[in-house]
Each structure stands twice: as C-alpha cells, then as structure tokens.
C-alpha cells in the first residue's frame, strides 16, 4: 500500500479539482494554516439511476416540483437539496399569533416523509455554487452532477433599500425586529413579541416592489389588532405602507381596518422607511421620525443571494431576480438550468399557491425536455390567496386569479375572482386551502 503522504492523500480524497476551482490553495509548508473545506469529492449519493434532476430548496416550489417530476416521469432521479433541519411554513404563519392554528399546523411536516411519499431523494446540505460547464451543483457536503437543476431558493432580505447600510444596524434589525417572511424562527420571535407586548406602538410595514406575500403585512396587522382588542392591550398597530394603497383585496382590508380596528390600526400609505435609529427605537421616513415600542420590520425583498452567487441573476433586475424565460423558467441560454418560486422575475404574486401551481407546470416542462419531447402548452400559475382579517371569530377574505400576457408581452391578472366580504366560511376555506397545499407537498 503506498505511503499516505500529503500528495497521495489529496489524490485519494479526489478533492484536487474542486479545491482548484474554488481557489483554495493548500500550502505545503508545516507553518501555513490550510483552509479545511468540506466540498471535496462527490456528495454521498448513489449513482444516478436515470437522468438526474437536482432541486435546490425545499420550500413550496421545491417540494412540489420534486414530487411532480417523479409523477411526470418515474425514471427521473430526483434529488432535493435543503439546508433546513425542520420545515415550518411561512404561509398561514400569521394565523398562529392569535391561536387560530398552532405551531404544529405549520411545522408538523417531514421532509423525509415527503421524499418517501414522492419517491425522490432528500439531501441535507447547503448549496454553495454552480458549475454549469461540468454540470455540477457544489454543496457543503460535496458536489452533485446534474442533467437538470432547478433552483427554488426563495427570497432574501435587502436592508440597503431602506438606507440601512451599516451591517451592525442590519444585524440588529434582523435579530431584534425580524420581518417574519422567511424563517420559522422569526415567527417564534414575533409571537413572543405579541404575547409580551405591554402597550404602545407596534410597528409593521409594507415594502415597495413585488414583495413576498402581498396581503401578509395587512393580515398580520389585523391579527395583532384582534389580539390587542380581545386582551384589552393599550396598544396601537402602526402600519407604514410604501405603496399608495393596500396592494391586494383592499376593500376587504379597509373594511376590517374601519369596522373592526378603528382605534387600533393606524394605516399610513405612501410612507417609505428611509432609515432607523435603533438606540432610540425610531423609524425615519421621508417626512417623519416615528417612535415605536416593538416592531416586525419587513425589509425590501430580493431573490435569494444564491441566484446571484450561482450566476443566474439578471443584473438589471431591481430585485436581483433570475434571468429566465418567463414561460418555461429556464435560464436564458441554458435549458439545463431552471428557477422557480419567489426568485422568479415575473410579476406574479410571490405566494404559496403561485409557487405550487407553477411547479406543476415546470415539472411537465422539464420532464418533457428530459424525454426529448415537445414542451407542453403554456399554463398560467394560479394565485389562490386567503387572508384572515378577524381572529375572534375567525373571518377571512380571498382572491383567486390567473395571469395572461398582454400584447406588449407583459403579464396582467386574468380570471380574477375576489371575495372581499369577510366571513366564517372563508376562514374555514383558508385552513382547508393551507392543508391542501401541505398535502400537495408532503403526501
């Protein structure tokens, strides 16, 4: 057996090529400290049984597309890569605060069960990069070769848009006053804030642009106001909106604000956040300085940083979103690479149903292309969106819409059905809708 000196060791581990590609040099001298990086070699996966499709990100889009790829063609070798240990949904999370649902409703869903039920591989790891020449996804657990790769990494927060450039401020905002539109741990923090709120101003805001979950901040304002009303908290919900009016279901939300929360919710449209002073607990807007006692500050929404680091971004996109075909979602110039879910640049609502219905269609597209068949006819995503506007008793409103390309090539709403009169029935349908989304991801 050859002596295991340093040169033989690197050869043996197969790390050489990857190390070179990532630019990490391993010094030969005993004094230098080498960077130890676990990207060496192939990820511990069995050899691909068919064409391999790697899906990056197990959110609504990723979980749905992994399942439907297998449904379209069971011979595909589907690997879903996710960095989270536990699933917890963003959709329906606002309903947890007043206790309409509990945390189990959001989190009692196993990635492992989803993979077993769907017939694909769930791979625990964090994607670090993409090598489109050699068709490999680079993860912290090793590299994965792909025939097709589908990125559905969601969104990231972008504080500089609010004039918040100091990393110390960004960190303090993210930890102390989280937006609550990305991670389960943010929802836990927000619930604790609401449960412990003693009075004063609870600040919420609506970002400009195509932020995730258009009705989310308005629904959250209603849920918090509902709680303050019921528990007689001497508090006010101050809702700053960068937009000129409520961005969706506005009649339904205004009715709730006026009829249910007249003295609790103060709604300020056309108000953008331009800075913060966290020492003084103040928000700066163009014309005002606003004090708050507690808050959940929703930053500007950009596509996941992974879209940028993996070279999939359109540099002209104001939200750093992917450079993809707006009907088939493939990277412009590369039909092996796709982006679905909220990292997309199309003006569709960034929401669960949109992502799930889009995933049904893109699974068909990728499966057809893998088989060398013609693309299936275009199908618009379907935005079905329920918003709870009252917690005691639960009452909700909803919208159901599709999208259509106009003559100028840009998308507009199509076949819109709004239910803006709040009701207990709509509240029941809200929960039924959410359960259906979980079933379509995990069963």
């Amino acid at each position: 057996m050859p002596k295991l000196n340093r040169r033989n060791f690197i050869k043996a581990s197969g790390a050489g090529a990857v190390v070179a590609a990532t630019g990490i040099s391993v010094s030969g001298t005993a004094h230098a400290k080498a960077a130890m990086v676990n990207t060496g070699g192939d990820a511990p996966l069995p050899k691909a049984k068919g064409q391999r499709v790697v899906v990056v990100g197990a959110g609504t889009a990723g979980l749905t597309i992994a399942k439907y790829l297998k449904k379209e063609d069971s011979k595909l070798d589907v690997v879903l890569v996710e960095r989270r240990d536990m699933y917890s949904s963003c959709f329906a999370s606002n309903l947890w605060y007043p206790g309409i649902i509990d945390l189990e409703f959001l989190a009692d869903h196993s990635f492992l069960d989803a993979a077993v039920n769907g017939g694909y591989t769930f791979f625990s790891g964090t994607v670090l990069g993409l090598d489109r020449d050699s068709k490999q996804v680079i993860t912290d657990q090793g590299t994965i070769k792909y025939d097709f790769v589908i990125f559905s990494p969601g969104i990231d927060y972008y504080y500089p848009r609010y004039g918040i450039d100091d990393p110390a401020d960004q960190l303090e905002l993210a930890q102390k006053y989280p937006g609550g539109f990305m991670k389960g741990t943010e929802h836990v923090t927000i619930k604790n804030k609401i449960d412990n709120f003693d009075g004063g101003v609870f600040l919420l805001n609506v970002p400009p642009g195509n932020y995730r979950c258009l009705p989310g901040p308005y629904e959250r304002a209603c849920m918090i106001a509902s709680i303050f009303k019921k528990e007689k908290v001497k508090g006010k919900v101050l809702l700053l909106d960068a937009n000129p009016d409520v961005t969706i279901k506005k009649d339904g939300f205004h009715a709730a604000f006026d009829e249910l929360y007249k003295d609790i919710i103060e709604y300020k449209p056309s108000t953008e956040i331009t800075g913060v002073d966290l020492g003084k607990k103040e928000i700066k807007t163009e014309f005002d300085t606003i004090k708050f006692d507690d808050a959940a500050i929703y930053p500007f929404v950009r596509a996941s940083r992974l879209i940028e680091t993996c070279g999939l971004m359109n540099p002209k996109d104001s939200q750093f979103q992917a450079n993809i075909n707006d009907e088939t979602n493939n990277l412009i110039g590369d039909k092996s690479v796709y982006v679905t879910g909220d990292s997309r640049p199309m003006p569709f609502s960034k929401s669960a149903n949109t992502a799930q219905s889009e995933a049904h269609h893109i699974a068909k597209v990728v499966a057809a292309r893998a088989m060398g068949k013609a693309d299936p006819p275009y199908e618009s995503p379907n935005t079905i969106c329920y918003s709870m506007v009252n917690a005691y008793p639960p009452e909700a409103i909803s919208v159901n819409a599709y999208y259509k390309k106009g003559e100028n090539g840009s998308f507009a709403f199509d076949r819109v059905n709004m239910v803006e009169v709040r009701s207990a029935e709509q509240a029941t349908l809200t929960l039924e809708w959410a359960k259906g989304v979980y079933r379509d991801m995990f069963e």
Partner: protein
Amino acid sequence: MQRRDFIKLCSSTAVLAATGTVAIPNGYAVEGMQAARLVNVEGKPVKVASLNTDENYIFHYPYQSTPCLLLGLGKQLKQETVLESDDGTVYTWPGGVGPEGNIVAYSAICPHALSYNSRAASILNYNTAKSQIAGIGESITCCAHASVYDPAEGARVLSGPAPKPLATILLEYDAGNDELTAVGVIGSDVFTEFLKTYKKDLREEYGRGGAEEFVTEKTVLMPAAEYSAIMIQC
C-alpha cells in the same frame, strides 16, 4: 353495458348483498365491503318520502369515515350516462332511484385534492342557486378549489381542476318500504388515498383503525347542515 344487463346485475347484487359481499363490474370492490340500509340518527330506516328535494344529506359508505352526499334532485336527470374512471375504464352511471327516479348519491370526497365533508365543515355541496365561482346553479361545487360537478349526470366534471367525476354510490330502492340501501360504488377509488392521507386526523373521531372499518348493515343519514358545524356555499 346495456341497461337491461345492469338491472340483472342489480338483482344479483341484491343476492350478494344478503350474503354481505358486493361485487360490481367497474366497481370499487374490496373484500368485506357490505351493503348498508340508510337509517336516521335513531336507527330507524329513512323513508324516501321524508327527504326534502334539493337538500344536502350526508351518510358514510363504504367505510365508517368516508362521507357521501345524497340528493333528491328537483331538476331533470339523465337516465344513463357513460363516464370515464381515472384508469381509463368506462362505467355507466345508472341514473337515480326512488319513486320519482331522482335520488342520487356520490362520494363527498373531491378527487382533486381530497377535500371532503367533515363534522367541522361541509365543503362539497349541491346548490340550486348560482354559485359565484362556478357561474352556474343546480350543481355540486367543491369550495376548496372550485371543482364543479353535475349530479344529474353521474357527477360529471363541469369545470375546475377535478380530474374525474365523484365516485357514484349505488343505491337500491325498496319500494315496499320506501327505504334505501347503499349497495356498492362505481367510478374512481378515492377511498384508499383518503384513508391514508387522513389517518391521523380521523383517529380522533374513530379511534385507531376505526376509520378503515366498513359500515355494516346500517349507516346513518342526516342533513349535512346537522352533520357539519358549517355549510360552505361558494
């Protein structure tokens, strides 16, 4: 399948029903599945004369936990309709039963995403009035995702995402007593997936394994408005 053959089959079904096993061509037949007379909450057989036209009634068949919708339709029914099941097999919906031939029954489990009528809410209902999302009246609408079915035509899909009709619950009418018996199922098998998907949810109401037990001899029929806490129309 000719109508005459089906009636013949019906008589043989009656014989089979007496022995406790039902087998229907293009039917969903599982060993142990039984015929069950429709009774009220007190256990007394329901009389067709007592049923209100166009009202939604719920009973459970063939399993303890699988809900069904029964309707005495006011509108005209098709006598026989040929429908397609999910595996491509074709089946003939035999029309309605009863003295006016207008009693029909279907599985109240929507084959689209398995939304169903529970004690908490009846989400799949018949409405004579025009449905906001369906755009038409006199149809069964599943308010979860707007699938619309025609109960006068074997619960054929009229619009929406449902991939197939609601399964038909075959009923036998006992003219002598004016009573009804559920004797079988034709169409798609939603039950296997339903029992698997809701195993945990159903355990609370039916106990471990209870949801998967067949109804035997009798099954309770009651207005959906009494069974469910909330009736959803959409």
